[in-house]
């Protein structure tokens, strides 16, 4: 146990007041060690004064508790000198505040006189002023690339799609939440070993033997009723809950694609012997021979049976129709683990072992009808077009004449309750099927032969063209079916309007790759879903690196029929359950490894020097020079090139293998500190300008999280970058790579990862599903991206009349009807009192809960740290946990008050809880609570009273906007330079940052302000 830990066992009074000192400065203080040290050499004329007047005061009133042994609240006063170090300036500022406020020394201790207080205060003011007048000593920096920076850099350097960085240990997280801070970056032998292995693997993938022909697998599966004239005669199985399409509806063709180079086509193995198979849920053992491509490639629907509305899928002559794939719940046993409903996949035994692949789906939006919900009444009346049963039998060649094109409602009239029978109808070429819902009685018709009462059900809304419409229908055994009735709807009819919205929706096509297992889903999405808006078949292309997807890792000679089955999933994506025209899949084609050229681009990217066959050494040197310059993000020095080249020479001398020798040399480049580190090399203790290349790297790792591009390096080579910072910043913000910054920065600043680890009580928050969580986590990122893209004033961060949402997120806030943009995040005017700004992002609020109850402390501490940069101290050790279920009837707030009234806790919590109470109107799912008595009033630390969260938002957006802007810039600067700020830098942002207020703290202004300040451009 450390001395700090004893704190609670003994007197309470001292420590609790002491916490106050640490209150707002703690995080600066505790982690400021990595900030450049201030010059200690400056001799102060005040040295004598310090020794004669100040030190005795400190000794007498402070050091007894704040010394090396006791270090109350982690604070040491005994180390203060006449010329304090930079990190101690934060402490001085805190002492000043504590003494000023009369908080220190504690009430029951010896007190300073007014005169002594003044002396101390004056000294602090003059010392800080003097300290700030001195230049901060700079000593350059060496920062390792973060895992994501390394991944991005490797990818752009090698043009390699595949992600090889899984084996790297995750980066440490700093107190501010960042992973790129030099003091949290550890390097271990394990990590360096991983760098070696990754580099070796990457080079093996990039560099090929040009003389060998590549082997390419290419096949297509066509889908449609009776598309296969020679279907597989065997009954195929694929384990429980796999619904194989009928053999005649599936056609697999192996192809030999046209390529501008010679290659070897790969044909899948069709003959197999297996000893292990399944009958139902039991394993059976008996050798059996198989010989058909349809025992190697299967077309299969998976998911729990049933679909809430209509059929999950339907095979029609033109292809396979899919409804949106409804995600499954997370936990086994509640309903299923077999992946979403309506989940189509191709299951197959063989895919390439490495390289990139391409999946091409030919798909269209089906010209669909809308199945009617149970609450719409049947319209069947005598004015509508009625088709009697006699014309509907499958053999009858029935037609109905449609005189007016338009939207029709189709009602089904029955002579009795059809129970759960499936009703299906074909209108022209189009097919529709579903259960009949909500049958209502119609008055018996006098002319009918059947006197029994008729039941009618509204079934379908559909747009019909003018002319004769071919027609057939089926309901169970048809004995109950009487007639169909078509009623044309006015465009103003509510159902017609609903249909108009429906028919303009475009399903999203998603492609997945994974492996079969008996449970759960291992399918991982390939790229992004694509919208299918046309009724005509179009090709949709999805690409990835095969090893970025789950691989069955099964030995080749496995004797189980179901072992090692790969899967290519194809889905119509589900957002929030809105009605969606079905997705029509005509064919799915796979090609891999996918090469545009041979040798592939990854190879040519390295071997880009003109081949000089007789002089491999010349070629090698040119290759290495060009590669190393790109890897080091600056020109290589002669000495560096000599060293790298000598690796090639030695390797070539011993093996005579040029390619292998190049690999060896490149392996050294990819493990060199010049590649792995961002180095700012200082020559003197004085602040220096960054070297232009250092600036290029600093800028691009800040705004793109990856290496500088050609243009930045060119500007650096001409030494023009420094004066182009404004235009370059604008250009970089507009570049797609800027997303890599937003993702990192927003997630880390706002602690979005907290949502990942919350285990949600799904009974209380059934809507906070796995998929909702994924999208809600993206919301603050997209929001911030939008603020920056539009260069909006910062006040929107806390108070805005719009949210930025996709269909899932909007729907979570009950605003689903405001967008038809699928997975795309767009601004939506919310028109609600309780939305807008990140404070009410449900993902953030849920992340700051325990998945059951809202938590004002977590939320309060988050506001204090992230939004206004007044971080509270860490909780002291041995704080008793507040029990939520302790049998008392107190609310959490009341329990908290009890807790705060304990002496050890009050001081800290007075800086946390007031920020958290206004959030009490929001539940652990991040939405407004209903029913319960809630008290969201709060008295903030400066005495302002707010009535609820809206009050807090208004207060932050108006009264405290300077502090919010400071917090944003402080976090931005910290992230940009990869270390904590010095006192001077901290004060600089606080004081000079305010100048941006006149232009409303626009986002670009703040980013440029940080970039153009000395803290960024000097080393």
């Amino acid at each position: 146990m450390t001395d700090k830990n004893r704190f609670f066992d003994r007197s309470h009074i001292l420590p609790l007041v002491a916490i106050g000192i640490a209150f707002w400065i703690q995080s600066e203080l505790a982690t400021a060690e990595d900030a450049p040290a201030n010059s200690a050499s400056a001799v102060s004329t005040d040295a004598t004064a310090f020794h004669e007047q100040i030190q005795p005061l400190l000794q007498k009133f402070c050091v007894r508790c704040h010394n090396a042994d006791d270090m109350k609240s982690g604070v040491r006063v005994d180390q203060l000198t006449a010329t304090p170090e930079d990190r101690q300036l934060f402490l001085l500022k805190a002492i000043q505040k504590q003494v000023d406020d009369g908080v220190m020394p504690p009430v029951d201790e010896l007190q300073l006189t007014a005169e002594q207080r003044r002396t101390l205060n004056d000294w602090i003011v003059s010392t800080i002023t003097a300290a700030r007048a001195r230049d901060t000593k700079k000593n350059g920096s060496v920062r390792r690339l973060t895992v994501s920076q390394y991944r991005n850099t490797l990818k752009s350097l090698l043009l390699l799609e595949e992600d090889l960085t899984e084996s790297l240990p995750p980066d440490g997280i700093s107190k501010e939440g960042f992973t790129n801070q030099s003091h949290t970056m550890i390097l271990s032998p394990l990590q360096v070993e991983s760098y070696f292995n990754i580099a070796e693997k990457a080079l093996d993938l990039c560099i090929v033997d040009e003389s060998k022909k590549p082997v390419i697998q290419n096949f297509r599966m066509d889908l449609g009723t009776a598309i296969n004239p020679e279907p597989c005669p065997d009954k195929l199985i694929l384990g429980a809950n796999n619904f194989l399409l009928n053999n005649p509806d599936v056609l697999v063709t192996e192809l030999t694609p046209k390529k501008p180079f010679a290659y070897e086509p790969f044909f899948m193995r069709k003959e197999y012997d297996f000893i292990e198979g399944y009958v139902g849920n039991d394993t059976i053992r008996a050798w059996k021979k198989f010989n058909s491509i349809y025992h190697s490639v299967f077309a299969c629907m998976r998911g729990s049976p049933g679909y809430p509305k209509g059929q999950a899928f339907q095979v029609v002559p033109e292809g396979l129709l899919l409804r949106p794939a409804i995600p499954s719940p997370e936990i086994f046993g509640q309903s299923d683990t077999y992946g979403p409903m309506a989940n189509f996949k191709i299951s197959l035994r063989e895919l390439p072992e490495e390289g990139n692949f391409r999946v091409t789906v030919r798909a269209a939006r089906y010209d669909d009808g809308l199945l009617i919900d149970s609450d719409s009444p049947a319209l069947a009346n005598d004015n509508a077009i009625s088709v009697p049963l006699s014309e509907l039998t499958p053999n009858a060649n029935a037609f109905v004449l449609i005189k007016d094109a338009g939207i029709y409602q189709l009602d089904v009239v029955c002579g009795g309750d059809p129970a759960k029978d499936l009703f299906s109808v074909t209108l022209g070429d189009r097919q529709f099927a579903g259960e009949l819902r909500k049958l209502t009685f119609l008055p018996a018709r006098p002319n009918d032969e059947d006197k029994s009462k008729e039941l009618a059900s509204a079934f379908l809304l559909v747009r019909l063209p003018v002319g004769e419409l071919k027609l057939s229908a089926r309901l169970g055994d048809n004995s109950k079916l009487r007639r169909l009735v078509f009623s044309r709807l006015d465009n103003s009819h509510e159902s017609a309007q609903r249909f108009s919205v429906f028919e303009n929706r475009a399903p999203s096509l998603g492609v997945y790759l994974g492996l079969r297992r008996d449970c759960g889903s291992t399918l991982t999405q390939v790229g992004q879903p694509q919208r299918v808006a046309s009724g005509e078949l179009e090709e949709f292309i999805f690409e990835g690196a095969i090893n970025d997807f789950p691989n069955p890792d099964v030995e080749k000679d496995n004797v189980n029929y179901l072992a090692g089955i790969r899967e290519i999933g194809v889905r119509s994506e589900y957002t929030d359950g809105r009605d969606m025209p079905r997705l029509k899949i005509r064919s799915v084609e796979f090609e891999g490894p996918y090469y545009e050229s041979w040798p592939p681009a990854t190879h040519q990217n390295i071997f880009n020097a003109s081949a000089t066959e007789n002089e491999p050494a010349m070629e090698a040197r040119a290759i290495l020079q060009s590669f190393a310059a790109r890897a080091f993000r600056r020109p290589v020095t002669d000495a560096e090139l000599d060293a790298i080249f000598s690796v090639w020479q030695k390797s070539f001398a011993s093996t005579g293998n040029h390619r292998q020798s190049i690999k060896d040399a490149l392996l050294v480049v990819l493990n060199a500190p010049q590649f792995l580190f961002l180095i700012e090399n200082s020559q003197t203790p004085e602040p220096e300008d960054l070297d232009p290349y250092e600036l290029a790297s600093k800028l691009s790792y800040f705004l793109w999280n990856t290496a500088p591009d050609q243009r930045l390096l060119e500007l650096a080579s001409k030494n023009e970058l420094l004066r182009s910072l404004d235009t370059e910043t604008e250009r970089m913000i507009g570049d797609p790579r800027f997303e890599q910054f937003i993702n990192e920065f927003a997630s880390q600043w706002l602690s979005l990862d907290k949502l990942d680890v919350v285990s949600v009580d799904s009974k209380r928050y059934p809507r906070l599903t796995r998929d909702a969580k994924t999208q809600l986590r993206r919301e603050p990122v997209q929001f911030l991206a939008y603020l920056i893209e539009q260069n909006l004033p910062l006040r929107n961060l806390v108070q805005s009349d719009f949210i930025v949402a996709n269909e899932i997120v909007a729907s979570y806030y009950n605003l689903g009807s405001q967008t038809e943009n699928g997975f795309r995040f767009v601004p939506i005017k919310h028109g609600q009192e309780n939305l807008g700004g990140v404070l009410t992002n449900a993902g953030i609020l849920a992340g700051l809960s325990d998945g059951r109850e809202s938590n004002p402390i977590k939320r309060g501490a988050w506001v204090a740290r992230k939004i206004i940069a007044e971080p509270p101290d860490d909780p002291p050790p041995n704080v008793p946990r507040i029990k939520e279920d302790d049998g008392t009837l107190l609310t959490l707030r009341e329990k908290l008050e009890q807790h705060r009234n304990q002496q050890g806790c009050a001081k800290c919590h007075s800086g946390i809880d007031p920020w958290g109470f206004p959030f009490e109107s929001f539940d652990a799912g991040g939405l407004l609570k209903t029913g319960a008595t809630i008290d969201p009033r709060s008295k903030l630390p400066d005495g302002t009273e707010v009535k609820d969260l809206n009050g807090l938002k208004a207060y932050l957006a108006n009264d405290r906007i300077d502090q919010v802007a400071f917090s944003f810039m402080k976090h931005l600067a910290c992230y940009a330079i990869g270390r904590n700020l010095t006192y001077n830098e901290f004060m600089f942002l606080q004081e000079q940052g305010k100048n941006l207020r006149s232009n409303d703290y626009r986002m670009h202004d703040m980013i440029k302000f940080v970039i153009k300040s000395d803290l960024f451009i000097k080393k």
Partner: protein
Amino acid sequence: MGSSVQLDRRAVLKGLAGVTLSLPLLEAMGKEVAETAPRRFCAMYTANGMSLPKPTNGIDEWSWFPKTEGRGFEFGKSTEPLSPFRDKLSFMGGLYHPNGTKADPHLCSDMWLTGAPLHNPKPGMFNSVALDQVVATHTKQYCRQPSLVLSIDAGVGFLSRTGTISYNQEGKPIPAENNPRRVFDRLFRGDRASLATQREQLQRRIKLVDAVLDNAKSLNKQLGQSDREKMDQYMTSLDEIETRLTASEKWIDIPIKSQDYSHLNLDANSEGEPHEYYRNMFDLIALAFDADITRSVAFMLNREDGMGVSDTFPVKLGLNRTHHSLSHAEDKEGQLAFAKYDLFLSEQIAYFLGRLQQFQDINGSVLDNSIVLYGSGASTTHNPTNLPTLIAGGANMGLKHGTHWRKPNTPMSNLYLSILRSMKIEEPSFSDSTGVLQDSVFTQV
């Protein structure tokens, strides 16, 4: 990992016995290590759970878990063969994988040593690292083989029907070996061609690490006032890797301790007599521990859900039904037969513990320097709580045995973290662990 590049001098010296002493002196070996007892780990998995008969069947004495808790426990009929080792083992009750209850129960062998959230896998991840591989990462510098992964069926099986219980740092399954002769040839014979390849690869890697180190040193000289700390860490890491590679290379030349192999029947295989097969596999593990060839072993004794050859073993033993089918039995006769298969397995485990006990080692027997974990991923079939778990050995690592410890709803990963800590592997956590076991058989965690 620090500077733990020392080799076990004892192992080397034993290896040197009777051989010329002009072999390279291993400078990586530290004095303090020489007298330190090795710390080893062996995990053994049995599928489909154990027999815990229904009370109405009136055969409680055949329950795998002892009826009473604490030090006064009595062995049941199916664990009776283990009673001679009463002071060297403990029953552990109430353990479970929190992720196990969320996932399909057929995944219980996949996650037994990993605790991974297989119900919600990380995209691209297959599983997470298994306990034996964490041990291997920390013990590999002391021995020839980082780990030995064995199973009743060779290979890996497939996800949800796994044929191995060991997963590497990336969560990929490590193919298991199942043939005693192949295991013996690889461990004790060392095939020349593969040694030559191994040496070549090591030498190439050493050269490249050297080149990187040279380059880094010259860069370091050019650096002016810059922060040296990161560079220092980097150089130290490179140094350590080089030392480790050099040590690995030297192992290739050091002969293996001479042992008596006469009792081995390398023709035994999984298609033959079950006990003959298991005994030979156990003999190989014991010999490998004794010669310090490896310090981490994982052995899947049989497979879940009727997979593989082991499903037929109860039939071979005259118990009429297959393993998976017995595990589903509800009737008295079936549950008794299932318990009798447990009895058969207990006999095999007792044999193994006996072998480890016979080999002398620093400060005691090999068993005293080895933690043996034996258990299943289900208590009875498809019930992933109260996992039947036995811990044996490890007296020199602070394990105090002879008890039936029980604490309901304790994460299995806490047991695993306790094993790691006992082995002086200072990992902050393992998988979903929430801490180490308190007041249990582990006294040095």
